[in-house]
């Protein structure tokens, strides 16, 4: 059922958890929120599929907290900062993992009233991520075949990321040219626009909206009155 929600619900859910994460400030509350998010990921089947991404976010959040600690932060504040980072980003995995980009665009245009050009730019920009992953894999393999043992060496990895920036740029440039051309040919920018699938909310979505509103109110109440 977590998969059948329409994109706008997922966007709101993702945005909602980000707001809650900002509002809550005690590590325990943030941990509970994280547990809830992990549960959503698990139920929608995205947790095991994207376990690497989850771990990466975890490591990133950890370093964020560490930097703040080294910079002289309070221990509890730093833990909260790391957890907040985690809480704000975790559900993006769910959003991007269960929604097709076309639907995301359609939803942004139809319900969030974002101008089509901007929504399109956003989703076209997301295409950069798979490109990056693919390019990185190809270069990693090429380097392995030339005798570079990589296993777990952080500096070598960073060096490799540097070396794929230029090819990635070149590829994106030539691709955006092709894309511009094919958009032109297919009448991009015309007055009438139709979308392939309906992204209008249904029964389960309205229940979610209600829950989201209630939880948000609850979280704010809890924070202000009970100091969660």
């Amino acid at each position, binding site marked *: 059922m977590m998969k059948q929600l329409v994109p706008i619900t997922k966007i709101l859910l993702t945005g909602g958890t980000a707001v809650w994460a900002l509002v809550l400030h005690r590590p325990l509350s943030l941990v509970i929120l994280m547990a809830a998010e992990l549960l959503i990921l698990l139920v929608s089947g995205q947790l095991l599929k994207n376990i690497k991404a989850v771990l990466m976010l975890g490591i990133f959040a950890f370093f964020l907290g560490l930097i703040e600690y080294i910079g002289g932060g309070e221990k509890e504040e730093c833990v909260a900062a790391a957890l907040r980072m985690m809480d704000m980003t975790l559900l993006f995995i769910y959003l991007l993992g269960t929604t097709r980009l076309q639907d995301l665009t359609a939803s942004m245009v139809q319900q969030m009233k974002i101008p089509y050009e901007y929504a399109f730019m956003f989703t076209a920009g997301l295409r950069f991520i798979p490109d990056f992953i693919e*390019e990185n894999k*190809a*270069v990693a*393999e*090429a*380097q*392995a*075949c*030339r*005798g*570079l*043992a*990589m296993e777990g060496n952080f500096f070598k990895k960073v060096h*490799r990321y540097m*070396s*794929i920036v*230029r*090819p990635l740029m*070149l590829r994106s440039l030539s691709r955006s040219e092709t894309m511009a051309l094919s958009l032109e040919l297919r009448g991009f920018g015309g007055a009438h626009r139709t979308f392939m699938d309906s992204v209008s909310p249904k029964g389960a979505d309205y229940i979610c909206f209600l829950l989201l509103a209630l939880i948000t109110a609850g979280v704010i109440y809890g924070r202000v009155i009970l100091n969660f």
Partner: protein
Amino acid sequence: MLTLQNVSFHYGENGPEILQNIQLNFGRGEFVAVTGRNGSGKTTITRLLTGLEKPTSGRVCYNGQDVTREDAAARSRFIGYVFQQPDRQMFMSTVREEVGFGPYQQGKRGAELDAVVDEAMHKADVFRFADEYPRTLSRGDQQRIAIASALAMHTEYIVLDEPTSGQDGREKKRLSALMSQMREAGITVILVTHDMDIVAGQCTRVIVIADHHVAFDGTPDVLFSEGRPEEWGLAYPASVRMGRSLPGAPYCKDMATFCEMYRKARGIG
């Protein structure tokens, strides 16, 4: 000797079986073609040889020593790889650095490094691009840069994945000549290709992959004169087909042989 012993393979946790019980030997100095329909698993075989994939069962041996668990970096001491899309394998900012990457990893420095790099660039005829950015060169040039990169590591085996597809006649000839040169220098060339003219004209051996198995493993003349290559979606080389129309239907491995046979049949020269 590089061998695949009873190798089976599938991608992912429980993907469909791509290869089943593959048994293959690659001897010193051979020029082996690996061919078969699109998606038959040719690239996969070469990835198993280089260590980019690990077999789900079976062993990979090098000179009798089990190297199944060795990764691609360790195996680079004896095998080099020219990818199907060579632009994807270039990652340094000049051709010279690109070619020098392998020998540098092998520990070569200074004059010794320069010497092997220059030699490899000359052999593959890419010296004039030495200071250019590899990714903006033509595919044929990139192909030869990739070959130079393997040559600079002095590997015993080199895998080329469809280097001639999409190339014009001139570039194809250059690549063919380069592959022959490597073979003469004692390097085992493993060529993945759909180009039957090269298979018949140059290769000492041809392996056909079909239905997850090795469907044929023998010399090209046996494949084209006694086998049924059309069953595996392979075309006959033009010279072989034309040779059949001559009296006595001689086997002509390339156009030069055909011309000679033709002259003989006509009683010319």
